[in-house]
């Protein structure tokens, strides 16, 4: 080959480059189609639910009492019950989980006890919710004598969400670089002062995101509350926000949906779907909040 020929071919694609480009496009295409395959069912589910629920959907649907043996009317007692369960369970689980995670991540030495606890946390996070339900029934409802009540159900939900809160909080804490802590310790600043001034301010968004994601899990679970606090119907005054006491039985959205769909004959189909939309709406709203926090976290990174 003359020098001119070599020069003219220097920037043309060889068969190797063409093959590489083809593989690149193929890989990208496969991953993109998988992403689509994930989104399409979600969109289908949501649009199908809303389409089916349309005749029953209205603003007052949420704030009305069920009527006519729950075949008509709204879902207020169930909506309120779910709010109660979620909020109380978080009030219990969030502080305990966050503080335990701070201990595990910031103080605990790497010994067999810590490793055992970490292993237990990971495994507890994977326990099926029906097992938590039975635990709650045994521990809170029967042994502690709480009966089926808001507090027993909330505690059961708290036990269920606790390991995940610990795991996500630990994740958020360990995302703060170790060098920040060392720099702080080097100056005679104590561990607790370092946690307060350096570690927590820079991980709080991640911690909150983890906690909020647990809201959607707690709101959607049926099994843990079925045996421990949620019942088919509780008559409450429609205008009262503090309708349930801690020791009362309550209604809940997930339970209500289950009852309406399986236990009561001749319920209009749109009512079931409307409840599903309300439940989904609560979960998506909470998730949107956590996505918002994530965006805030990304734009306000301090390092």
């Amino acid at each position, binding site marked *: 080959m003359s020098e001119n020929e070599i020069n003219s071919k220097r920037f043309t694609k060889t068969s190797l480059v063409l093959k590489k480009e083809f593989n690149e496009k193929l890989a990208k295409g496969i991953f993109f189609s998988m992403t689509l395959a994930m989104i399409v069912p979600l969109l289908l589910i949501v649009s199908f639910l809303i389409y089916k629920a349309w005749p029953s959907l209205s603003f007052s649907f949420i704030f009305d009492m069920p009527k006519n043996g729950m075949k008509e009317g709204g879902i207020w007692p169930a909506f309120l019950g779910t709010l109660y369960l979620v909020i109380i369970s978080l009030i219990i689980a969030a502080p305990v989980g966050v503080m335990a995670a701070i201990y595990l991540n910031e103080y605990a030495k790497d010994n067999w006890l810590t490793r055992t606890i970490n292993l237990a946390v990971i495994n507890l996070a994977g326990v099926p919710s029906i097992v938590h339900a039975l635990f709650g029934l045994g521990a809170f409802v029967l042994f502690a004598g709480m009966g089926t009540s808001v507090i027993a159900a909330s505690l059961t939900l708290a036990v269920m969400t606790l390991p995940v809160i610990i795991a996500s909080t630990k994740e958020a804490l360990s995302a703060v670089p170790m060098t*920040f802590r060392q720099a*702080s310790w*080097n100056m*005679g600043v104590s561990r607790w002062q370092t946690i307060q*001034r350096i570690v927590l301010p820079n991980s709080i968004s991640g911690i909150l995101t983890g906690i909020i994601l647990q809201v959607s899990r707690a709101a959607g679970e049926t099994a843990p509350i079925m045996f421990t606090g949620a019942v088919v119907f509780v008559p409450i005054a429609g205008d009262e926000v503090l309708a349930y006491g801690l020791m009362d039985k309550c209604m809940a959205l997930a339970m209500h949906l289950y009852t309406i769909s399986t236990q009561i004959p001749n319920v209009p189909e749109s009512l079931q779907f409307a409840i599903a939309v309300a439940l989904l709406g609560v979960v998506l709203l909470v998730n949107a909040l956590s996505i918002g926090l994530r965006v805030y976290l990304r734009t306000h990174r*301090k390092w």
Partner: protein
Amino acid sequence: MVESTAKLKIEDLKISYGDKQVVHGISFEIPRNEIFGVIGPAQSGKTSMLKVINRTIDFTANAHVSGNVKIDGEDVFKVKDVYGYRRRIGMVAPLPVGLPLTIYDNVAFAPRSFGLTDKDQLDALVQRCLEQAALWDEVKDRLGSLGTKLSGGQQQRLTIARALSHQPEVLCLDEFSIAIDPVTTMKIEDVLKELSSEMTIILVTNLVQQARRLAKNTMFLLNGELIEEGATDHIFSGKASNPKTNEFVSGAFG
């Protein structure tokens, strides 16, 4: 060397992590108010030695330390107020660390943590430390911006300013220049020469020429053993007592 001029006196210092011993019984003295160079290749125990001196080795779970470390005749492992003790030692790590706070708060962090809240005093302290670290002129108009957004060299000077903020008696620098440019390095070296009149400086470095430029006395560590210690001029003269020292300073290994 007269005993009373030694700032730090270290006797038979042994450090091990788990089963692995990294420092094998070294003894030396660090004279007051001058720059003391520590040279040696990686894994020679330099950083571990500094961690013992400011007692952050306490945070390493499996570390075991024996021997005597005395500052002004006082055993550092018997000090009651360990946080107060760490304030007496300034520490600058190899990689620049800007804490995720404003430049002002970076420097005011340590003083605030032990109770200084007076705004005027803090202002004066922050300015003095930043001036000493040769950073004031570059940041005086933006003390409220984040320390983490500074360039690497500026962050390293910020780290030095932070180490000075708790008014240490001993300043330890652990390979401070490996992540910064030569011009900044020279700037900081000038700063260190100034500071050495008022505090003891331990300069751990893998740039042997840096020790030669700055240190009055130099110690050569190799694999956790003290090979040689003495006047820097002697260590670098090529006529050091131990042939390994001559080889190391001339760049034959390390």
